[in-house]
């Protein structure tokens, strides 16, 4: 069974719809949202609405730090981000806020662990930004596979026989065999705000039966998403990021 792994949507409806369509056409039978549904972008209401519809049909979702910021102050965020959080709080309706507040930090299903940041201390929002951090997260997760987001760049970490971890830069669209025999941690990239210099939305599909992981990049109307951020009066920097993928 193939499960689509979508993280860091960040209120970008155009990117989310493009990825969902791509995942459906690629044979995804299930969906997992790995946190940060909101923040930065101009469509929080529509994005949370879409995810809730998917959740009603069996999709799984975990909480990200931007989702948490809807309910509690996040002192660590910079000014532009705080502006974006304040704006999102205003436009998001109560039911959607309640949904975000009720999301779990981590979900474990058989030998898979879904989490937004590091599974070591999910509520601390540590970045998995190197083999050492990947190892800590994977060891805490106690699972063959950890799927996460938070870092807006696609990377696959894996364990060697001597317990040492390595990073691999995946090629989009190419299935990678990921045997259950070893441990893997995939940072699936960001749907709504990629930061590797490419505007295309990022997500991944995991096929549990064939033990294969495929990272994807999906071109979408990112200029429209950026335009909406400007029209909503949100910080220019966030429009620029979506436009350039930085």
């Amino acid at each position, binding site marked *: 069974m193939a499960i689509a792994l979508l993280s860091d949507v960040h209120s970008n409806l155009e990117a989310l719809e493009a990825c969902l369509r791509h995942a459906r056409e690629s044979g995804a039978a299930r969906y997992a949202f790995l946190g940060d549904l909101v923040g930065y972008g101009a469509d929080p209401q529509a994005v949370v609405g879409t995810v809730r519809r998917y959740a009603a049909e069996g999709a799984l979702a975990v909480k990200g730090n931007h989702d948490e910021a809807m309910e509690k102050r996040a002192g660590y965020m910079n000014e532009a981000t705080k502006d974006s959080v304040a704006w999102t709080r205003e436009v998001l309706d109560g039911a959607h806020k309640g949904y975000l507040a009720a999301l779990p930090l981590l979900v474990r299903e058989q030998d898979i662990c879904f989490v937004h940041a590091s599974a070591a201390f999910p509520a601390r929002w540590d970045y998995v930004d190197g083999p050492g951090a990947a190892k800590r997260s994977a060891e805490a997760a106690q699972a063959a596979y950890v799927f996460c987001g938070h870092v807006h760049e696609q990377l*696959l970490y*894996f364990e*060697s*026989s*001597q317990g*040492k971890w*390595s990073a*691999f830069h995946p*090629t989009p669209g*190419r299935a*990678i*065999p990921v*045997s*259950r*025999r*070893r441990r893997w941690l995939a940072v699936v990239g960001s749907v709504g705000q990629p930061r590797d210099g490419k505007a295309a939305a990022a997500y991944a599909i995991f096929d549990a039966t064939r033990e294969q992981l495929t990272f994807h990049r999906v071109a979408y109307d990112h200029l429209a998403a950026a335009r909406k951020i400007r029209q909503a009066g949100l910080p220019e920097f966030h429009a620029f990021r979506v436009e350039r993928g930085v």
Partner: protein
Amino acid sequence: MQRLEPGSEIDGFRLGECLHSGAQGLIFRVAAPELGFAAMMKVPRVGPGEPAENLISFETEAMILPALAGPQVPRFVAAGDLARTPYLVTEWIEGESLDAKLKRGPLAAPEAARIGAAIADALHGLHQQDAIHLDLKPDNVVLKAGGEVALIDFGLAHHARYPDLLAEEKRFAAGSAPYVSPEQVLGTRSDPRSDIFALGVMLYEMATGELPFGVPATLAGLRDRLWVDPVPPRALAAELPPWLQEVILRCLEPHAEERYQSAAHVAFDLRHPEQIALTARARKTGRAGLPAQLARWWRARGARRAPRLLPKAQVATTPVIMVAVDTTHANDPRQPFLQRATAQVLSLSREYRLLCVSVIAAGPVIEGAGAAGDAAGAHLEHLVRLRHWAEPLRLPPERQSLHVIESPSPERALLDFARRNHADLILLGAPAPGQQALAWWRSVASGVTAHARCSVYVVRAGHE
């Protein structure tokens, strides 16, 4: 795990004769007539007391083989679950291993060159698919009946599109001691030119019966090849032609950037010895003197692991470009345009090879050559014209070669030549004005464009 012996069955595969039983595992023939080719099953030795590496290289092979295609690799059939019953079923390639052949003694230069070129073909096919073998040795080269070779055992291989499971397995970084490249000794597993070094060792062995760096047993011994200058092959076998020494020593350069940059270029040189530009390498009669050895040692001292190189990207920057020049019609107006287009294409890469080809009708038909021109004279005359055509490009001799081919069918001759020499691009003129009465689809340009395996650049003459 169940006991394996001829007659037992695993996942529907019935085991036949046991072909090999070694430290790493067992190989059985597999009866599977529905496949349409002979098959074998490889089973690693696993369990208590067996090294973990067995399984990792097995896992690597099971990951990489299904991604490879072509006559140079065994076809992948199936892989067993690593946790339950690890096995790998692949095509069984019929033929003698190069190892078995070399046990009977060294080979004459033409045969060494022929086999070397076939190995280089196989390597090029592999590198084009973004894979590197990294454990080339005579054991892993199968000589097929048709003269082609296949490479087997991908347990240490690297594929740029897959995570490198062996990257951190330090004890493994190196392949087989006599053949491993200097950069592999330093831990680099991502340079396709490592395979070219191993090919150089095999060529040396085929030509002389000796190994250029012996069989070192320690890491320090392995590191010697970062600076030690092998005895020139001609010092061991005086009858070897200088061009073969040139090719071998260029493959064996300790610094990858001084070797051949593409296996296709090695194959080409081994097939066209007369076109090889000989350097000081061909003239060497002994190892470098002490000062030079010390300089090499000093340079090697600081050598570190090199950054990652994508095999495919490396292939893309070392193109073989073929240009078809009509030397029969001397004042062809297309020629300056073809020259200009060639110069433009060559300006895009430094590591190119340019093959200038002229196809002439068989027999002495050459305008203005007079009745005296016999076949050899005609051939030479066209070669002179071809050189004249290429001269304005001012290319270094080692980057270009000139070929006059006699054939009744220019189209077929050009296509065959391009395929045999791994051309990445063919440049040729559109039908000349005089031929425009001819339908496009009957022209050489259209035939070549339609049937070439590579890209074709059809150059049309504009107005001067």
